[in-house]
C-alpha cells in the first residue's frame, strides 16, 4: 500500500517533467502555427492577429506558466484551428482509443493465451505449429496492409462490416461493435503474435520447474496443474507484455486509426503535431502519459497480487 501511495505521489513530478519536455520539444520543431492555420492565404495582418490571439508573441516561460496555470484550473486550452476546447476533443477521442485498445486486447487474449498454453503443453503438436505460424504472420504483416486486406474481404466482398468510420456506443451496441470489428482484428493480430510467443515461452519455463513435477507426482490432474498453478506462475511476463502493449496502443494505434478512419487520440496528436497545434499536442501527450503511468501502476499491483513474493519488490 505504501508503495502504491509513493508511486501515486511520484505521478505529479513525472507529469510535470513530461509537460516541460513536450512544451519545449514542440517549440524546437520549425514551423509557425499561425502560418499553418492561415495556410497559403496568410496575410501579414492575419498572421499578426493570430500570433497575438494565441499568445505566441509572449516569451517562452510566460507561455508555459500561462498554460500550466490554466491546466490547474482544468483548462486545457483550445484547438488553434477550430477553437474547440481541447478537453472536448479529448473527451470524444479517448473513448474511441480506449474501446479499440480494450477490444483488441480482449481478442488477442482469447486467441493467444489458450493457444500459447496448448503449444507449450504439447510441443511440436498442431497447436504449437499454429502458434508458430500466428507468431510469424502476426509479427511480419504490417497493420496497414492487413487492415486493407480485411476491408477487401469483409467489407467489399462479403459486406459484413463497414470499411471505415466510427459509430458511438449510444447509436447501438451492435453498430458500434461492427465498426470496431475490423480495426480491432487488425490490431489483435499483431498483439496475438507477441502474446502467443510470450505465453508459450513462459508456460514452457514454468512447466520445467520442480514444483510442477511434484504436482504431477502428487497425482493432480493436468488441467488443474495448468489452470491453478502453471498459469498463475507464468502470468507475470504475460501481464508485463499486456501492460506495455496497452500503453503503446493508447497513443500508437495511429496507422490503424488512419486506415479505418477512427477518430482516436493517436491520430489527433499526430495531426496536431503536423499543424503545430500546441495546446492539443501538449494536452494529448499529458493524458497519454498519465494513462501510461496508471496502466503500469496497475500492472505492478497485479504482479503483487499474483505473486506474493513480488510484494517485497514492489515496496
Amino acid at each position, binding site marked *: 500500500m505504501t508503495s502504491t501511495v509513493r508511486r501515486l505521489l511520484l505521478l505529479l513530478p513525472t507529469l510535470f517533467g513530461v509537460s516541460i519536455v513536450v512544451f519545449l520539444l514542440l517549440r524546437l520543431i520549425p514551423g509557425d502555427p499561425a502560418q499553418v492555420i492561415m495556410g497559403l*492565404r496568410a496575410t501579414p495582418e492575419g498572421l499578426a492577429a493570430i500570433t497575438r490571439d494565441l499568445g505566441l508573441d509572449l516569451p517562452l516561460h510566460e507561455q508555459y506558466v500561462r498554460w500550466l496555470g490554466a491546466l490547474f484550473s482544468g483548462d486545457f486550452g483550445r484547438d488553434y484551428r477550430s477553437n474547440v476546447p481541447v478537453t472536448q*476533443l479529448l473527451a*470524444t477521442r479517448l473513448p474511441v482509443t480506449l474501446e479499440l485498445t480494450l477490444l483488441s486486447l480482449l481478442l488477442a487474449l482469447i486467441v493467444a493465451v489458450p493457444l500459447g498454453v496448448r503449444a507449450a503443453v504439447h510441443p511440436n503438436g498442431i497447436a504449437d505449429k499454429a502458434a508458430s505460424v500466428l507468431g510469424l504472420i502476426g509479427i511480419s504483416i504490417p497493420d496497414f496492409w492487413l487492415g486493407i486486406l480485411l476491408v477487401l474481404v469483409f467489407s467489399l466482398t462479403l459486406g459484413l462490416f463497414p470499411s471505415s468510420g466510427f459509430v458511438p456506443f449510444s447509436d447501438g451496441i451492435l453498430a458500434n461493435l461492427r465498426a470496431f470489428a475490423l480495426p480491432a482484428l487488425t490490431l489483435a493480430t499483431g498483439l496475438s503474435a507477441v502474446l502467443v510467443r510470450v505465453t508459450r515461452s513462459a508456460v514452457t519455463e514454468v512447466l520445467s520447474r520442480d514444483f510442477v513435477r511434484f504436482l504431477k507426482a502428487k497425482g493432480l490432474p493436468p488441467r488443474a496443474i495448468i489452470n491453478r498453478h502453471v498459469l498463475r506462475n507464468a502470468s507475470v511476463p504475460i501481464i508485463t507484455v499486456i501492460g506495455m502493449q496497452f500503453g503503446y496502443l493508447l497513443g500508437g494505434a495511429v496507422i490503424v486509426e488512419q486506415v479505418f478512419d477512427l477518430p482516436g487520440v493517436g491520430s489527433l496528436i499526430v495531426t496536431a503535431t503536423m499543424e503545430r497545434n500546441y495546446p492539443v499536442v501538449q494536452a494529448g501527450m499529458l493524458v497519454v502519459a498519465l494513462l501510461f503511468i496508471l496502466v503500469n501502476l496497475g500492472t505492478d499491483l497485479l504482479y503483487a497480487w499474483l505473486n506474493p513474493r513480488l510484494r517485497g519488490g514492489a515496496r
Partner: protein
Amino acid sequence: MTLQKDQTSDFLLKFRQGRINRRQLLHSLTLIGALGAANGLVPGLGLISSARAQGKTPKRGGTLTAATIDKPVNMDPAFAELYSSMQVYQNVFNKLVYAQRDGTLVPGLAKSWRQVDDKTWEFELVDNAWFHNDEKFTGADVKYTFDRLADPKLGAANHVFVQPLEGVEVVSDTKVLFHTKPNWGGLLLALAAIGEIVNKKAIETHDPKLMPIGTGPFKFVEWVKDDHITLERWDKYFKPGQPYLDKLIFRAIADDTQRLNGLQTGEYGWIEQVPLHRVAELKKNPELKANPGGQFFPDIFLLNTTKPPFDNVAVRQALQWAMPRKAIANVVWHGQAVPSLEPVSPSNVWYSGVDAYSGAPDLAKAREALQKAGIESLDISFASQPQVPTQPLVGQLMQQQLRQIGINMQVESFESARWFEELTTRRYQMTGTYWSVTLDPVGHCLGPLSRSGSAWNFSGFNQSPELDAAIDSFNFTVDPEVRKKSYATLMKLHEELAPMIFQVNFDRTYWTHPNVYGVETLPSLELRMEDVWIDA
C-alpha cells in the same frame, strides 16, 4: 443608361438579330456578369437547375453522406484558409451571385445587379431569405459582411480578394450600393467566389468558427470534430422547393482508396475523388457514377526570384522550355489533368492559348537559355510536400528532365509546417503547389501570386512594373472584350517573365451512386448540394 446595361442590351440585340449565337451570348454576358439581369429577357435562355438538366424530376428527401478529402477546420467564411471548410459552409451560407458550371453568373441573394457608374454597383436583394437564427436577411447584413471582412483587427484572409471594394451603402432592406475603386472589373466574380453573407447577431452570439449561421439551403446541426458535420434542410430557404435532401453529412477521408471503398459499400453516397490510376476502370463500373467534372486547380512551380539562380529570367525561361507538361499530365496525374501554361485550362472561358514556348519541351532551347544566363551546370533543390502525393512524383520527373540540360535537381521533403516556413522565409529555391483558380484567373491567381507587394507573392517577384501594370489593367477594366485582350497580353508577359510556371490543370470529378443526381464540379469549387437529390 449604365455601361453594363448598354452592353447587355447590345448583346441581346445581336442575339435576336442572329448576329451572335447562344453560346457567344452566354459568354459575353458572363464576362460582364450580366446574365442575372438578362435571365428571363431571352426566350429559351431561362436558367435551369443542374438537377433538371440531367433529365429527371428532382425528388425530395433522404440523407446524403459525402466524403471529402481534407478535414474542415473553421466555419467562418471570412477565414477560408482551407478549401475543405468552404465545401461545408458554402451550403450553410448564400452569396449575392453565383457562378454556373460554364462561368455564367446567376442570382443568389441578389435578384439583379447593374453598374451605376465606374465606381458604383447596385444590387437588388431578395426579400424572402431568412438566416437560420430566424433573423430576416436585409441589406444591413450585406454591409456588415463586407465591413467585417475589411476590419484589420479580424485579419481575414479573404479580404485580399475584395481590396478594391471601398464600402457598401445600404439604400433599403432590399437594395445596396457597392462602392469600388474606378472600374473594378472583378467585383461580381469576387462576390461569387468568397462573398458568403453573414448576420451580425449570429456572429456576435455564437463562435462563427464553430457555429455557422447563414441563409443557405442547409442549417448547421452538429460538428463532431474530425469525424463528421451534419447539416439539415432549412425549411425557410428562399428558393421554393429547394434543397431536396433532408440531411447532409460531411465526412473527411484522406485516403482515396478508403473513400472509394466507402462508396462501394454504401457508407457514402458522394465522394470527392477516386484513386487517379483507377478512373478509367471505374468509369465503366455501372454501380458508380462519375459526374461532370472540371479543371479548376492549376499545379504551379513557384520559383524563388529573390536569389540565384532564379533571379535570372533566362534560368526561369530554361525551365519553361524544359517543361514536360504532357508527361506530367499522363504519368503523374494518370491523364486526369490537362497541360496548360496559364492558370486556366483550355476549356475555360478565360483561356487565351498564348504560348511563348511553342514546341516545349525543347531541350536545345532550354540549354540555349541557360547559356544565355552564362550557366553550364547548376544545382538546385525542389521543396516537395510528401503529403501531397503528386509532388514528389513531379519532382522526380523534373529531376530526370532537367538532368539533360545540366541542372542537377535535388528533391527534398518537408511536412506542411516546415514547407510553409521554407516558403514564407524564401529559403526555398523551387517548389510546387496547387491554387484554386475559381472564377477570375487574374483577380484570384496572377494578381495575388505575381503582383509586386502582394502578401502571397511567394516568388518574391517585383522586378517588372510592366507586369504590375498589366495586372492592374485587367483588374480595373469592366469591358469584357478589353479584359479578354488584356488577359492575353498579361499572360504572354507572365510566361516570358516566368515568376512561376504553370504545369497542368487537374480534373476534379465527383463520384456518386448512380441514383444521386444534380452533382457537378463548379468553377467556384463549391459543392452546391441544394441541387442534389436522391432517386430512392
